């Protein structure tokens, strides 16, 4: 239990004030969120704030059961940052580049482990943040996870506005209200490729959001 204390303190004094007051969320369909793990929360990725925002969808009593996938080279680059990422942010490292002889399964081993521990895992299937407020194609990692866990509950979440608040390459935070639209969870991944299904769901969820021009 002691291990979750730094996580909770950081969440309470830093992450939640930022996501709820500075940013401000317009949450649609929160009842569709998974109540318990194992489950995967998949979202489009535009900003470093995406992860804290997705964490804030869970109550403080449950948030330590939620972890997020993060780039190994970035968040676990030095030992001190790695400690912070692991214990304070609840991040799960995934390598972005495969080395000789490594399979996709090897790279995703930490995600599998977290799911086997019945955790809710935040996963960005686009891989990286990309251009602000533009979706990029969903990569194959999600299909690999789903073929290993065919009955896994996968809950798609569409995020809008965080790329305006804090886009890639700009450390300054500019407040905007952001939209978080939770989709119906999908499960039973035998027929169609999950990556395709999720892309289609993102298309639908995107329509529920008023998007003022941002250019």
């Amino acid at each position, binding site marked *: 239990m002691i291990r979750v204390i730094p996580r909770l303190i950081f969440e309470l004094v830093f992450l939640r004030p930022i996501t709820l007051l500075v940013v401000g969320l317009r949450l649609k369909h929160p009842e569709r969120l998974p109540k318990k793990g194992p489950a995967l929360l998949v979202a489009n990725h535009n900003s470093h704030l995406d992860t804290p925002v997705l964490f804030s969808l869970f109550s403080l009593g449950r948030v330590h059961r939620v972890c997020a996938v993060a780039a190994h080279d970035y968040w676990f680059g030095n030992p001190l940052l790695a400690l912070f990422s692991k214990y304070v942010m609840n991040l799960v490292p995934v390598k972005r580049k495969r080395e000789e002889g490594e399979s996709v399964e090897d790279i995703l081993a930490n995600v599998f482990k977290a799911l086997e521990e019945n955790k809710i895992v935040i996963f960005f299937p686009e891989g990286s943040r990309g251009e*602000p407020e533009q979706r990029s194609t969903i990569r194959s990692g999600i299909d690999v996870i789903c073929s290993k866990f065919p009955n896994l509950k996968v809950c798609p979440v569409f995020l809008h506005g965080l790329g305006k608040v804090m886009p890639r390459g700009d450390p300054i935070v*500019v*407040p*905007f209200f952001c939209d978080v639209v939770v989709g119906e969870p999908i499960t039973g991944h035998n027929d169609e490729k999950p990556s395709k299904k999720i892309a289609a769901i993102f298309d639908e969820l995107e329509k529920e959001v008023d998007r003022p021009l*941002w250019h």
Partner: protein
Amino acid sequence: MNQLDNFEILSASILGALILATALIWGLKFSPKQAEELKLRMKTWWYIFIFLLGGLMLPSPSFAICTGLISFLALKEYLSLIPTRRADRRVLLWAYLAIPIQYYFVQTGWYGMSIVFIPVWMFILLPIRMILIGETSGFLKALSELHWGLMINVFAISHILMLATLKFPSFTDHKALILFLIVATEMNDVFQYVSGKLFGKHKIIPKVSPNKTWEGFLGGVILTSTLFYFVGPYMTPLNHNYSLALGVCLAVAGFFGDLSISALKRDIGVKDSGNLLPGHGGLLDRIDSLCFTALIYFHFIHYFAV
């Protein structure tokens, strides 16, 4: 027992009205959908009441924080609603930073700076910051939309707090003065709505708002000025006749404040400005008339009573 002051009587009356309205919603028969909507709306009214009364009753600078927070949330809602340019991120940040500065000037009673900071200094500083970025495409549109947003959401709303710093020859009940502005503005909305529902026939400005009628507008003016004639002299330093005149001005200002935000939403193509206040819509939907009435109320009193 100590006698209640006017602020306490006004707060108690609002409390009574809220309890009555809540009892009516729970007691009367509505369709389930209607009842749920009304209950949600009522619940939000209670939160607004507690928020404002808490701000007024706790020691200073709680009301500055309270009104500053309203400005921040309203400006954020406004900027999330309108088209903005990616190049302007830092300009928008400057606009946000104007909020604590403006509220500092107001809170410290520095009247001159409170009045010129946004209309003069921000009027110069925003284009300077924008020029340093150098994006000319859409320059005028971005600049004017941002400055209008600051005027409505920060300059106008900060006038509510500015009332607290006015010094009158004999009147001292500033809390009553502030609460009466907010109550009268909301009552004017209600008076217009009810008169429109009961007698509304002739549309007044159908292109902006198809539901507004001449009967609603005039009913609002008559009832609000009656309220001002009888209650105004106790809540403000004005006598009956001046208070009546202010009532007419406030009713007209509230009407046009409301319609300005309606026109803005119609221009953008949204129904609600946001969803910050469940059952009401966004914050801008609620404070739309207040943005105009706060300015009129303050400057009328500043001119005639100080």
